[in-house]
Every structure is written in C-alpha cells, then in structure tokens.
C-alpha cells in the first residue's frame, strides 16, 4: 500500500482550476512565506534550506543548501532557475510552471533574498508557450503586488526577475550550457573545472543555478521550517517529490508522494497513483529516473523511491521520471529511439559523444529495421565502452558533460537484460513485433 499521508508541498493547489492566478494564490497562503523570510537574516533563511536537506530536483540531486553555502564566501551575483525540462518522459516542471507559477516566483524571491542577489533569471524551455505566459503573468502580478522590484514589501531588499525563453535544445538543461544560452550563444557546455557556476557562472561571475521544483519547495520550507521538511522521507532523501509516471500504465501523470516511504510498485500499481499496467499485462522493465538512467527489471519493483536506494542498485532517481514498459513493448525499438534522441541532441563538441551516438543509433536502427548482424550486439557494447569506459555506474566520463556517458545506459541495460530480444531481431531480419 502506498503511503499517501504526507502533505502536498508543491502541488497543494492542484484541485483548483484557477491555481495560476494571484487571487487564488493569495487566498491559499501565497506570499506569506516571503513576508516571513524578509524578517529573518538571509543566512537564517539559507539555514532552513540547509536543515531541510533539500536535494536539488533537477537530476543530479545535489543538496541545494550546500550549493548555496559554497557561495557565501564570495558574494553571488545572479540566481538562474533551470526550467529547461527536456529529459524524455519528465514533465513535472511543466506542471509547476503552468499550474502554480506564483509558487515558483515566490520561491525565487526567497532564494534571491537568502543569497542576497538582486537579479534572477527564469530560463524555461521555449516549447512551454503557456508556461512562459503564465510565469510572465505571475512576475507582472508580483511587481504590482509589491513582491518584486524596489524595496520588496517595504524592506531593504530589491529584486528583478527576468523570464527567459530557450529555443529547443536538450543540452541547455546542463547548467553551464544553460548559462551559455543565457549569454546569447550556442548551448555548448563549459569545460570543467571549475565544476560549479558558483565559481564562474553568468558573465564569469558567481552564479547559483537551481531547478524549478527545488525553488517551488521554498515557500513551504520557510513557512513550516526546515526540520518539518526533513522529518518527511528518510536518510538523505527528505520531503516529498513530484514523480512523472509515463509509459504503459493506466493512469500516467505527475504525483507528489513522500520520498523513500513509497516503492516503485506503489507508484506504478496503487489505484490512487499509476493504477497498474494497461490491459493488466506483465511489466517487462522500467526506467527509474529519465532515459539517462540504467533500467530496472520487475525484481526491483519493491525498491523505495529514494536517491541512495536507487543509486545502490546501480541507477539513479535522476529527474523523477519513471517509464514503464510491458510485455508488449519492444525493448529494441525503445532503445533505438532513445539513442536517436541522444544522437540528435549531442551538441557536437566532444568526439566520443558526437560520433559514438551516431554509430550506436545506426547499429540500433539496422537491428530494429532489418539488416542487423549478430556481431552488432557486441559492437554496440564496445561503442558504449568507448564513450564510458568500463560501463560502470556512475559512468566514467570521456566528454565535457554527462550527455555522452548517458548514452550507454539504455543500450547496455537492454542488451544485458534482453539479449535474446536482440538475437531474435537479427534472426528475424527486423522487429518480430511487427
């Protein structure tokens, strides 16, 4: 049975059709947390986030409080919010920007106050036309309400927020690539070190980059205290989290549930959540954290939804996206499509990623569509090994960013778990499902 007693922290307004308006936001406790934060010392606000142990909700899962404290030595210049949500089958930030834009804006103002920055940018993928309009309206409303601009709510703190549209590039979710895009350039990830924009960020100045969902948690944390947040979940995975459930389930959608207290089985099968597999088929495999993550088989359905728990089994909770494949799904076709995605989205800077993704995609294509050779199966593993030597998890890196080492995840998983399916494709001269 799923554990559904935890409060909704970021999706508390999901039952209101007008949840995106200032009126509804104010009626449901909006901007109370900001007023409270402004009476606290900035480092005390940051201290609550630290106490909450809020792990970044973008994909890497780095503690937000630590990301902030690294900067406190040198004043930080800019806050940049990452709303470029593009990891395939991840759609939880989409929910937040369209349905609760004021919560995001309030979170950004609170974070800006804690960090004492006076200009913040919300970078959102361009395909979110409605999300961009809703967040821009929320920013306009916040200015009119006195929550943004000069001397917010009569305090000594001033802030501007700029809503910035992207233009269609998966790689811009990588934070240094996002900064390049925000500087008006091609979204090429930057060479590391320095590893953190906190050292060298926008225009070379100290910058914090945080995800939309991370920001959206802040009003609740300020209102209720970091300890109340940390009391939810277990271990390093505190609080609740938005999980985006997709694929062959009866009720795909975005669900906010307590971390660790629920398992993949709860999320996929509970009648109040995923509701089970379409047609009550058997589950074949699932991807636990976006297509960059190695796959799991049904034997791991009882694994808790926690960052360390999933890492312990050799994958990642990543972006909070879970994709379910059933016995009717062709895993070879799924792998080919994921590889095609990486091949299209490789920025082209690093040879192993640029060339490797194309070679893998072509080999996957011929296995799926006819013309595959038996030796292609081991060739695929060899190509993967060239991108991420040893095929370990977390992967070894031969490239500037982690897009490259994400490519082998699905190919390696699928061959390891379903080698017979690949063999059947080669022998059949194409996809036997057709």
């Amino acid at each position, binding site marked *: 049975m799923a554990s559904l007693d935890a409060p909704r922290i970021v999706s508390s307004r999901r039952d209101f059709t007008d949840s995106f308006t200032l009126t509804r936001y104010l009626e449901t406790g909006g901007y109370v947390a900001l007023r409270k934060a402004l009476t606290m*010392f900035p480092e005390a606000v940051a201290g609550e986030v630290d106490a909450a142990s809020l792990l970044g909700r973008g994909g890497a899962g780095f503690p937000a409080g630590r990301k902030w404290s690294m900067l406190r030595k040198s*004043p930080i210049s800019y806050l940049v919010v990452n709303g470029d949500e593009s990891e395939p089958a991840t759609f939880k930030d989409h929910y937040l920007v369209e349905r609760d834009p004021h919560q995001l804006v309030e979170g950004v103002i609170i974070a800006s106050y804690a960090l004492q920055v*006076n200009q913040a940018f919300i970078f959102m993928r361009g395909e979110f036309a*409605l999300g961009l309009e809703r967040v821009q309206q929320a920013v306009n409303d916040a200015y009119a309400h006195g929550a943004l601009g*000069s001397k917010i709510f009569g305090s000594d703190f*001033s802030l501007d927020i700029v809503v910035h549209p992207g233009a269609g590039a998966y790689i811009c979710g990588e934070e240094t690539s996002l900064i390049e895009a925000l500087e008006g350039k091609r979204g090429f990830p930057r060479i590391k070190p320095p590893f953190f924009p906190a050292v060298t960020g926008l225009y070379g100045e100290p910058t914090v980059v945080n995800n939309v969902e991370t920001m959206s948690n802040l009003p609740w944390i300020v209102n209720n205290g970091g300890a109340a947040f940390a009391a939810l979940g277990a271990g390093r995975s505190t609080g609740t989290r938005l999980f985006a459930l997709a694929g062959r389930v009866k009720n795909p959608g975005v669900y906010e549930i307590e971390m660790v207290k629920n398992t993949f089985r709860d999320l996929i099968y509970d009648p109040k959540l995923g509701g089970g597999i379409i047609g009550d088929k058997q589950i074949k495999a699932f991807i636990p954290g976006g297509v960059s993550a190695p796959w799991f088989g049904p034997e791991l359905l009882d694994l808790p939804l926690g960052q360390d728990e999933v890492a312990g089994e050799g994958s990642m909770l990543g972006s909070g996206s879970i*994709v379910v494949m059933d016995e009717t799904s062709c895993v070879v076709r799924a792998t080919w499509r994921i590889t095609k995605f990486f091949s299209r989205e490789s920025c082209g800077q690093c040879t192993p990623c640029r060339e490797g993704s194309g070679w893998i995609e072509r080999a996957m294509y011929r296995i799926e569509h006819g013309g595959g050779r038996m030796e292609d199966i081991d060739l695929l593993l060899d190509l993967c090994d060239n991108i991420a030597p040893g095929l370990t998890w977390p992967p070894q890196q031969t490239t500037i960013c982690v897009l490259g080492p994400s490519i082998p995840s699905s190919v390696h998983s699928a061959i390891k778990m379903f080698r017979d399916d690949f063999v059947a494709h080669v022998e059949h001269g194409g996809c036997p499902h057709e």
Partner: protein
Amino acid sequence: MSHFRSDIRQRAEELVALYPRPRSAMLPMLHLAQEQDGYLSDEGIAEVAELTGTTPAEVRGTASFYDMFHLEPVGKYVVGVCTNIACLLAGGEEFLEHASTKLGCSVGSTSEDGLFTLEETECLADCDRAPVVQVNHRYMRTTTPEAFDTMVDDLRAGKLDHDVPPHGTLIRVRRSAGLRAPRQEVADQRVAAKAAREARAEETK
C-alpha cells in the same frame, strides 16, 4: 531603415535593457524576429545582430543550434508530433505517419498550400497525454487520429485562431515594465548586506 515593425523594434529594445549584456537578449529577440516574419529572414538576422552587438554570422551560427528557429520559411502552423520514449510506447510513430497523410506533407516539409509544416519532435514534457502533439508550441492534446483530423480541419477553418497564433508568436503576455530595482539602490544594498553579514559573523565568533 528598420526591418522590424515599430512595435517589434520597441519590444526588441526593451529586451536588451533587461540584461547586463545586450547579447543575452539573443534568444528572446530571435523569437521576436520569428513573430514578425514567421521564420528568420536575412533582414531579421541583420537587425538582431545590430541590436545585440554581434554580427549576422554570429546570429545565424547561434540560431542554427536551436530547433525552434527556422532559417527557411515554414507553414503558418508548425505541427510537432513527438515519438520519444513515452509517445513511442503509445504509438507515436504510427501517429506521425497518420499526421503526414492527413496534412499531405512528409516529415520536415510544408504542405502545398503553405499552411502546415510537419516536424518529428523530441520529448515535449506532456507524457501523460501521449502521443503528444503541439501546434506552434501549443499543446493540442489530440491523442487519437480522429481528434487530430478534427483539429486540422478546425485550424483550416480558422476556428482555433484564438488558441493558436501564427507560427513565431511565442509569448503573448508582455512584460509589464523594465527593470524596477534601481542600480544605485542595488549597489548600496549589496554593500550594506555584506557589512551586516560580516558583523553578524564577527558576533557569533
């Protein structure tokens, strides 16, 4: 002579004023150029270069990196059908084929009447309503071939003009004003905040 209409030109200049450096206005301004012309014309690119302090080659080189920018004319409606993992599992490939037949154009091309351009997209982050269809980046939520056909007919008949502006128009809500936190005020606040923090740190020692 400005290629941009006066209202687009004004909005482009307002954009530049929002950023510490003019080049940061590049992506939003390219969206504006597409709003006027439907795609990125040579004249639009030249004007973006002028306003962002770059060259047309730099603008073109940047724009060509991003899927949403079109360097050649496209239809009034750019129809995107996703075939990435969640949509694939919901029959996205077959859906794309159906879309191609209905619109009368192959993937990546424009229908003869110039109304529709069909694209195969990567994940559009609406995976609980797969297969996902966007028209000019508006979610249409037509997950059956029948619903898709009705939508196309409605677009042709102009019944969806209110929901779906012509290609290029991205954000219809305009920013209400420029930056409101005065520079000197912000500079003073940063100095005061730093001093106050150091004083508190000294106290707790």
